[in-house]
């Protein structure tokens, strides 16, 4: 008789909705033990339901709070002693034209999307080292192309792309694989959780009319959004792979945009890209 295969353990941040929720559910279905990080107890209902029937353990993990990150990982260390996968998914969008964003807006954006990711990774690495693991960072097509109206978000996702590349190099000697999943438009709660910059909220912004047009475009874009479970499937595939690729663009829109950006010289790309934003012409 072969001994039972020990269960693999994963930590998913931002697991109350979207990619995080779908990934948590899928991994649990596939026989993983999943620690599902949540920030807002009022939003943890669906997660709590799942945890009754599956090997899912909701855990308070607010990536902007160092103490909560340390505590969550301390719990995992005590209960499991080891971690096989970390999915850095927690993130949100600060929207608004860059001049309209205050110091506070920018810092809030980076605190979750960038510093939070580093915080969780820092605390998880000791557990991931033990038998080799995988880190999946959720980036975005905004990590390749900076769209007007969400410049701060793009900056944070460009940084995530860079951090994934850096961590991949630095953690390779410890048998920790790091990849970035960069989705396009998916049906998540990202629009609902978007925060607007101070200048945008005040309403007297010089960019107000452009802002409106961008919002219209976003609305239209999200009508074509694909189901978030697609990205969860991709993450599962990555976690099962011994040699995952460094970057996975998720969704045809992200693949196409990234390919255009890769293929075209800046000037040509800007011409094509700019034609989607007719207001951004030179006066």
């Amino acid at each position: 008789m072969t001994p039972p295969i020990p269960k693999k353990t994963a930590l998913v941040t931002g697991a109350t909705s979207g990619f995080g929720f779908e990934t948590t559910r899928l991994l649990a279905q596939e026989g993983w033990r999943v620690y599902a990080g949540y920030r807002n107890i009022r939003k943890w209902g669906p997660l709590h339901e799942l945890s009754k029937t599956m090997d899912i353990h909701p855990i308070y993990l607010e990536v902007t709070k160092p103490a909560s990150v340390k505590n969550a990982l301390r719990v995992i260390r005590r209960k499991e002693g080891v971690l096989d996968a970390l999915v850095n998914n927690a993130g949100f969008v600060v929207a608004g034209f860059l001049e309209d964003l205050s110091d506070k807006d920018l810092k809030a954006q980076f605190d979750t999307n960038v510093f939070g990711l580093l915080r969780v990774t820092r605390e998880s690495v000791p557990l991931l080292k033990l038998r080799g693991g995988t880190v999946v960072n959720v980036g975005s097509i905004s990590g390749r192309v900076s769209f007007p109206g969400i410049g701060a978000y793009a900056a944070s996702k460009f940084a995530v792309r860079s951090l994934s590349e850096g961590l991949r190099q630095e953690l390779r000697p410890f048998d920790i694989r790091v990849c970035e999943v960069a989705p396009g438009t998916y049906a998540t709660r990202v629009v609902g959780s978007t925060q607007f910059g101070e200048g945008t909220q005040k309403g007297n912004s010089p960019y107000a009319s452009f802002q409106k047009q961008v919002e219209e475009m976003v609305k239209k874009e999200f009508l074509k959004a694909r189901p978030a479970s697609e990205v969860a499937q991709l993450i599962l595939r990555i976690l099962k792979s011994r040699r995952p690729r460094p970057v996975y663009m998720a969704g045809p829109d992200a693949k196409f945009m990234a390919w255009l950006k890769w293929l075209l010289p800046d000037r040509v790309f800007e011409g094509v890209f700019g034609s989607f934003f007719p207001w951004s012409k030179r006066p």
Partner: protein
Amino acid sequence: MEDRPVALLTGCSTGIGLETALLLAREGWRVFATMRDLKKAETLREAAQGLPIELLSMDVDKPVSVKKAVSTVAHLAGRVDVLINNAGWGAFGALDEFTDKEILAQYETNVFGLMRVTREVLPFMRRQGSGRIIHIGSLAGKMTFAGIGLYCSTKHAVEALTEGLRVETRPFGVQVAVVEPGSINTPFKANRRKAALFLKKRSAHQRVLENILYFGNHPSRFTPKAPRVARTILKALKADHMATRYPVGLDSVWFPVARWFMPDFVYDRLLEAMYRRFGA
């Protein structure tokens, strides 16, 4: 006298900022050269004999200091035609070993500081209906290297901010570009701030990091110096329409091109070979 274009520069005590201030002044611009600490202005003062350079103190980390400096420029010159966001420094260490404080300090200058100055200057440029903003990015904004990963991530963010601002401010006649120096012979590398864990020699990556620091810190005689970057900045300012990116130095041009054609797995094998050389 008063129709001279006005340039505002940050981080002018050494390197690229200093040389650019001198070059623009020689070209007849009215230059406001700012730096965190005016005590470090001696080099610039000596070189600037007779040139139209005005020195101001500005610490881009501090909102009050930025506001004060920009309003001084507005008061003295009444306009800002060019902003060169040059202030920045490099953190050194492994990405999983920086403390929260070290991470924030790196971003405070390179990203938040850059946006702080930009935010203060943009209203003037919009009112004028013209203006140019040049961010000093880096080759590190296009590729990431072990040991300076945190710095690379800030410069990636600068690339995104450049692309974003470019589209957002174009209707107001403001142009934005990023100048991307590769390895340049300036005090930048000597001024790298190392992670505490590395300095205490307790890093899990200690040997690799020490090797990277050793190999990466010796400029050859072919390494371009700061005036080369200054000349590129001038070229960008003189162009009718600024391009998005201006790489400076052979490495800054060819590394991304090589990476462009290279499949990921080849790139990874190359990195592995590099690590072996570094003794990981």
